[in-house]
């Protein structure tokens, strides 16, 4: 009896031993905090975009700082107010060897503008009406109105192979994506790992190693441990408090960049107590933002200057300054507004979505407690959060970050009627937004955005906290990798020593 059990068990264990057996080949291992549900394109999450970007590319490239550059399109020009012509890179091949052509671009764009497809990132190019092939390497994209953010928006839209969709169908594309990018899909195990091999024929130059493994390690402490132990070479989302440990290990260093994400606390202005502007203003005075920035974020990222936009975003208004920390004034304002100190003010936040999110929420609640407000923290999980957000019932106060990706349009839209996510509706703000969207003069756009920021600063639909940092840790055995402001992993230029 016993002798029969042993081989069975041995077989059971050896099942797993075969998976990691790269011998002389070089492998780059990356630890990510969050994995997307699947590799389906168009998911509106940075985690999804980061994985998809390894295999698939957009017409317009974007670098770690958020600057755009030629991608699958070499250059582009306006044909008229609502048509832009893209000249494609020639000689690019899909991973299965077929040529990349204008047909693929037109197919991709026309597929996703169909609302039935439910493409999550459609809002990025919301004004696009369709695409038309001009010749094998030229394509025209048309928009319903003047659409100044078209090119930047396209940097989030990956091009997909027409022939593969037609042969294999949508499910197959999700299961086994084919792209033009620097890495080729090998296996994807949700919640565990994404394995890829280098694309030797990549137009941008083959990666200098053979395999790329992206692992999901949700626990921050374990992620750091895996880096120090040498199991991974790059880790994402390093908690601020663990930076010191990494730096003192002598094996890895920190690489960080300020993102375009503005972390804010949004009030439900429809209901008491936050329908009273005085209460909103008082709350703003009650929070010691510089102290939180210094102690919790360890001065990484930036303090928002009383507006939604980070300093590097187009449309940032340099005239606005954040309200100073003044708890006495806050208390006085609340008394004046007849604020009921007995009501509980729950502050909703997600956990691990943004750098130090729960920490910041707890400290903010603590500071509100100091002036006598009965604030609590409500950590909400993903599914419930989406439901609350769709129903526009986030509770009195919720913490969220909006990414501008360098252009005010992308984050300010969420406070318009058009964005469908705001409970604060302001006609003047909406009018300014529409004006900004319908001019192609950058100077004019900046002027409108500045006015919008000033308006928001006055009205306080939200408390503006911090421009969030994006913190990576990189093993000393790696060169050629940089932290990305948009959290998309760019590792094709990395080298292993």
């Amino acid at each position, binding site marked *: 009896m016993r002798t029969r059990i042993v081989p069975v068990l041995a077989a059971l264990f050896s099942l797993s031993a075969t998976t990691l057996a790269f011998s002389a080949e070089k492998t780059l291992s990356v630890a990510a905090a969050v994995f997307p549900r699947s590799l389906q394109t168009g998911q509106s999450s940075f985690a999804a975009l980061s994985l998809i970007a390894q295999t698939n590319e957009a017409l317009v490239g974007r670098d770690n700082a958020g600057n755009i550059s030629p991608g699958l399109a070499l250059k582009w020009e306006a044909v008229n107010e609502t048509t832009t012509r893209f000249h494609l890179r020639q000689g690019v091949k899909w991973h299965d060897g077929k040529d990349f052509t204008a047909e693929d671009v037109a197919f991709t764009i026309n597929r996703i503008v169909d609302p039935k497809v439910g493409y999550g990132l459609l809002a990025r190019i919301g004004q696009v009406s369709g695409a038309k092939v001009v010749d094998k390497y030229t394509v025209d994209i048309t928009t319903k109105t003047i659409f100044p953010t078209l090119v930047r928006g396209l940097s989030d839209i990956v091009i997909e192979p027409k022939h593969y969709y037609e042969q294999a169908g949508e499910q197959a594309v999700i299961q086994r994506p084919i792209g033009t990018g620097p890495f080729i899909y090998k296996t994807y195990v949700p919640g565990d790992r994404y394995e890829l091999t280098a694309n030797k024929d990549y137009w941008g130059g083959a990666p200098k190693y053979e395999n790329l493994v992206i692992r999901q390690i949700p*626990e*921050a*402490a374990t992620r*750091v*441990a895996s880096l120090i132990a040498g199991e991974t070479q790059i880790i994402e989302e390093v*908690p601020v*408090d*663990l930076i*010191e*440990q990494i730096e003192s290990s002598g094996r890895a260093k920190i690489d960080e960049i300020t993102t375009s994400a503005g972390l804010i606390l949004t009030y439900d202005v429809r209901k008491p107590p936050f329908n009273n502007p005085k209460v909103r203003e008082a709350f703003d005075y009650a929070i*010691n933002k510089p*102290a*939180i920035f210094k*102690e*919790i974020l360890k001065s990484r990222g930036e303090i928002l200057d009383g507006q939604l936009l980070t300093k590097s975003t187009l449309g940032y208004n340099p005239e606005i300054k954040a309200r100073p920390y003044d708890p006495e004034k806050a208390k006085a304002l609340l008394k004046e507004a007849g604020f009921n100190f007995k009501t509980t003010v729950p502050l909703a936040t997600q*956990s691990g979505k943004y750098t130090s999110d*729960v*920490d910041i929420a*707890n*400290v903010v*609640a*603590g*500071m509100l*407690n100091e002036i006598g407000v009965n604030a*609590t*923290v*409500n*950590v909400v*999980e993903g599914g419930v959060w989406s439901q609350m957000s769709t129903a526009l019932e986030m509770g009195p106060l919720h913490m969220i970050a909006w990414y501008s990706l360098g252009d005010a349009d992308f984050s300010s839209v969420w406070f318009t009627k058009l964005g469908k996510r705001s409970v604060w509706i302001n006609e003047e703000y909406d009018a300014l937004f529409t004006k900004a969207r319908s001019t192609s003069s950058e100077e004019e756009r900046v002027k409108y955005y500045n006015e919008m920021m000033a308006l928001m600063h006055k009205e306080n639909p939200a408390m503006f906290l911090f421009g969030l940092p994006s913190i990576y840790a990189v093993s000393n055995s790696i060169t050629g990798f940089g932290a990305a402001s948009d959290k998309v992993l760019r590792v094709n230029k990395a080298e292993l020593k």
Partner: protein
Amino acid sequence: MARSLFKGQLKLWLGGGFVLAVVLMAIFADWIAPYDPYRQNLLMRLKPPAWMEGGSTRHLLGTDNYGRDLLSRLIYGARISLLVGVSSMVLSCTIGLVAGIFAGYKGGRCEQVIMRLADAHMAFPDILLAIVMVAAMGGGAFNLILVLGISRWMIYARVIFGLTRSIKQRPFVEAAASYGAKDVYITFRHILPQLVPVLTVLAALQVAQMILQETALSFLGLGVPPPAATWGNILAEGRDRLFVAPWIANAAGLAIILLVLSVNLFGNGLRERFDPRMRQAA
């Protein structure tokens, strides 16, 4: 020496003594705790305990991520941890007792339905049920008690059922029944008193399990929501900073081990006292 250490009496006193100390600490937390457990101080965050380099006697066990005094949080944390542990035990004990007596005394269809339910429930890991329920209903001490209580009723039900059935067949119960005593009377007068020893032992051991379960749910982010101080929360919050501030998780972990250990000792001591032959583990 080793021999006396494992005598029932000592277990009872040692375990019971520590549990009593924790209970008193929880009740009189307002007088004992040196600081407000919720009072943050950003300038004092992550300060080590007094005996470590950089620590001070102002915060004996150091401070946590928000500069809150760890000792005070542990003292106050005992309240919710004990409350959750004991209340959920009482709940599951009550459900299990009623179901078990009913099934054992009535027999027949009653027995079939209740015991099949218990069997079905046994095939469903309690933590799984707890996760589904807490995720659905939301955190909070009350929901947690409810969930933990419901997730373990069948353990009592099974034991009580077996005992009730055997007691029912004893001569004095049969005699009472033949005199025409009412079922309720028999249950309270003859059966319940017989169950007390087993019930007490089981209850004590279950409190320990419930406290551990609260910790596990807190780890998964399904416990009593922050900023509430519970030992599970402190341990869960400490795990992210284990490498920079190990004292947070270690203090809470040690507190949990000591309490659960004492409760277990107390329970085992009780068991040996009630029935020296009953030495099986829980």
